[in-house]
């Protein structure tokens, strides 16, 4: 019997797990995919929002402010890439100035620090890359960018180090109320627990609605993105949002923490919670709208992708104990600014648990975590030191992003280590560069097979069914 089972190892589930691991409890995280960070958490804008967007008084607003304030400190404790680069909401039409004022007012009510409207001249000096069409902008100096994978892995690894169990490849099928809590049937057996935390992203309503009469309605809202080469990553330094225009909700143009340029997302409600396909229309919309924000949008894509936001019909996060299901706690409808909010959601849920079921603090909680060193970012002295420690740090596997065997081995051998090519990619950036794993994928597959003690034909991109190799030469001749 577990004290708590968390369903979903995305950024929300991982943040909650990490926060709960500070107290003496037996905790399990169930994840249907082969790795953590496989759903919404892996495909989003990677923005640490300042918090002007959400309606004052909403959970989104409250947790956004808190999350934004936590992020910098947390990035130091848990060693993930975060940068406070400031954001700008661009206004392209004098007639829309009122909307900009409204946003400023909303932000101030929410408690966002340093918000102000900047006029064209100042805007140009703040952000020389901005398009001439922008007449003014809302400047949010506390806006930031964060590596969504880095944040999720950091939280999950730290939770694991502090005793939280993670069971991957385990899909929850049914949940039923029992005398003492809940029985969860999964693709890999049955689990019983006193508390359930529902952090299942686009599937959260399906779980919630099994035990609660007050139904949730979650729609997967697809967002398509286009990621550009690092060669053009310096085009802008701030995150550029757009005020909604006649063309609809705007899209963003932002540098990423790793120095690429990211544009997107679109917003389209879809039925299939696994529909992460991109479309010609979506990608064209992204590029057309992005071109409004910057003078010269370079045509240097290295990849495109789409992610699904878990949009709940009520419009706000649904976090708390379900009214008619004691011990069943939702962390549902976590759409934007969910990534920013995650650490605050962790705190909020932990607080709630402490009220419902007090537990003593754990002695020896490990508050910090060290990420995978990056040879690409290391100084010559740091590079030397790493190579002395392990010569594998001198063996380059991914030439585009300069990722070495040492980093890949580190990614495999660490807590909740990578077992798939995508897992390696998101932990180390091997394969994230301009050749998109053309050269390094066979080498990475070979390292994974060696480390995991399996044949190369068993290595997958992202879990069973996504194997790279289908057989041997001439097998079918």
């Amino acid at each position, binding site marked *: 019997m577990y004290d708590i089972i968390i369903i979903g190892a995305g950024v929300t589930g991982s943040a909650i797990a990490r926060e709960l691991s500070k107290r003496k409890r037996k905790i399990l995280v169930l994840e249907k995919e082969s790795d953590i960070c496989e759903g919404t958490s892996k495909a989003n804008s990677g923005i640490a929002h300042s918090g002007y967007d959400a309606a004052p008084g909403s959970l989104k607003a409250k947790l956004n402010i808190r999350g934004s304030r936590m992020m910098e400190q947390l990035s130091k404790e848990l060693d993930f890439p975060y940068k406070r680069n400031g954001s700008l909401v661009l206004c392209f039409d004098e007639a829309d100035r009122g909307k900009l004022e409204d946003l400023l007012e909303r932000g101030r009510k929410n408690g966002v620090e340093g918000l102000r409207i900047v006029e064209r001249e100042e805007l140009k000096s703040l952000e020389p890359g901005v398009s001439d069409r922008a007449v003014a902008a809302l400047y949010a100096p506390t806006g930031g960018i964060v590596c969504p994978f880095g944040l999720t892995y950091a939280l999950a690894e730290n939770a694991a180090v502090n005793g939280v169990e993670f069971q991957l490849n385990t899909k929850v099928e049914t949940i039923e109320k029992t005398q003492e809590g809940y029985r969860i049937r999964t693709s890999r057996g049955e689990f019983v627990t006193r508390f359930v935390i529902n952090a299942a992203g686009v599937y959260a309503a399906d779980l919630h609605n099994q035990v609660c009469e007050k139904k949730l309605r979650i729609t997967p809202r697809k967002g398509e993105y286009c*990621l550009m080469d690092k060669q053009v990553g310096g085009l802008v330094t701030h995150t550029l949002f757009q005020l909604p225009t006649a063309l609809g909700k705007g899209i963003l143009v932002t540098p990423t923490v790793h120095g690429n340029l990211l544009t997107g997302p679109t917003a389209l409600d879809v039925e299939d919670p*696994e529909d992460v396909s991109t479309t010609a229309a979506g*990608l064209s919309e992204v590029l057309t709208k992005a071109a409004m924000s910057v003078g010269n949008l370079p045509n240097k894509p290295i990849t495109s992708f789409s992610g699904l936001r878990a949009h709940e019909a009520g419009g706000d996060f649904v976090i708390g104990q379900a009214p008619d299901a004691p011990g069943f706690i939702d962390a549902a409808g976590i759409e934007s600014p969910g990534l920013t909010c995650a650490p605050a959601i962790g705190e909020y849920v932990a607080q709630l648990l402490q009220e419902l079921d007090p537990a003593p603090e754990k002695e020896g909680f490990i508050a910090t975590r060290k990420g995978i060193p990056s040879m690409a970012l290391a100084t010559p002295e740091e*590079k030397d030191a790493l190579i002395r420690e392990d*010569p594998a740090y001198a063996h380059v596997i991914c030439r585009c992003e300069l990722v070495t065997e040492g980093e890949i081995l580190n990614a495999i051998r660490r807590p909740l280590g990578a077992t798939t090519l995508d897992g390696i990619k998101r932990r180390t950036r091997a394969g994230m560069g301009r050749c998109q794993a053309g050269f390094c994928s066979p080498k990475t597959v070979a390292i994974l097979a060696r480390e995991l003690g399996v044949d190369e034909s068993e290595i*997958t991109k992202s879990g069973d069914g996504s*194997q790279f190799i*289908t*057989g041997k030469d001439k097998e079918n001749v």
Partner: protein
Amino acid sequence: MSDRKLDLVIIGGGPAGLAAAAAASEAGVKDLLVIERDRKLGGILNQCIHNGFGLHTFKEELTGPEYADRYIKKTQALGVPFLTDTMVVDLSWDQETGAKFVTAMNKESGLFVIEAKAVILAMGCRERARGALNIPGYRPAGIYSAGTAQYYVNIEGRMPGKEVVILGSGDIGLIMARRMTLEGAKVKVVAELMPYSGGLKRNIVQCLNDFDIPLKLSHTLVDIKGKKRVEGVTIAQVDENRKPIPGTEEYYSCDTLLLSCGLIPENELSLMLGVEMSPVTGGALVNESLETSIPGVYACGNVLHVHDLVDYVSGEADTAGRNAAAFLQGAQTQNDTNVKKETEIKIRTVDGVRYSVPATVRPEHMSDMLTVRFRVGNEYRDKVLAVYFEDEPLMKLPKRIMAPGEMEQIILQKKKLEELAEKALAAGVSAPQITIRVEEKA
């Protein structure tokens, strides 16, 4: 600031680097080093196990590894030193002294810096990836560049798929259509966006026609289906603006998509160094000596511009190697003040000719005959390839067919150019130009 000092560092131990090393060594450069990132010399030739290499160089048909082996043996016999499994991570130079600094690392020596008087860039090229093509659809396993599939099949003996669709008709894609078929896969179709193939005619005949694999010109991929592994792709015909024509979509079930949509010179190091680049080739702008905008830095092979035939790579690299040797032995470079700047002739490429290598010629420095290579931007039938010095026609070559997939070449004669340059200068033309263009038949 350096751990070692050398005369010449050659970055890349593929066909270009090997031939450059051999030539430099034969020309007397003994204090040199070839740095190769892979564990073996030979570069991409090691996975090109088909034959057809060396017809020009050796007058016989070799496989890729055999061709590489000839040059490996040659450089070994010359005593050229190599470092394999070694990655160059930074390249810089001192504008005052002209010294180049090559930062590299490997397991044995860790991170180290070599100071070199001259550098030859021979890093090769890479394939254009799916992301750069912005192909919509899912992102499952089973999408490979043709070269990655070639690595699996030819180096590892593993099949990356059973039922294959190939997008793009570049040479590696054509070669892989045949290889995958021979190894037991079913290649259903090759789709090419352009109205002509990007590959060599002989490869279309020998790799597609001989195996009844259809080539669909003016077609592109509009969707990729499959969440975990590719399940199928949709191909559509494109109009003259290369936009898919609605209603022409055809679905092919397959578990594998190979991409052969162009090669890109791999010039990250050249950019770090600050070499002036050609926006057309993605490679450095070079003069007749294959010297880049930085004195003593040469480029050759696919890092300079993508070649069809390795024989041409070897020839070009030989030139780079000899010129690097001449540089080291004190010959003048373009930055020497006693070379008259006005003798630099720019090669202008217009009317269907996309670029040329070299981009400039200094008659004093060229050999008696200088081969200028270039590609046309479209398929041309029954046209004339015309070369002018200023307004004076130098040659008019009737061409039955020219295509972007086949590299063209002309040969310039030193004596003639010297005469013309002198005449032009006397007539007050300060920057004479050679023009290469496609013309109608008279």
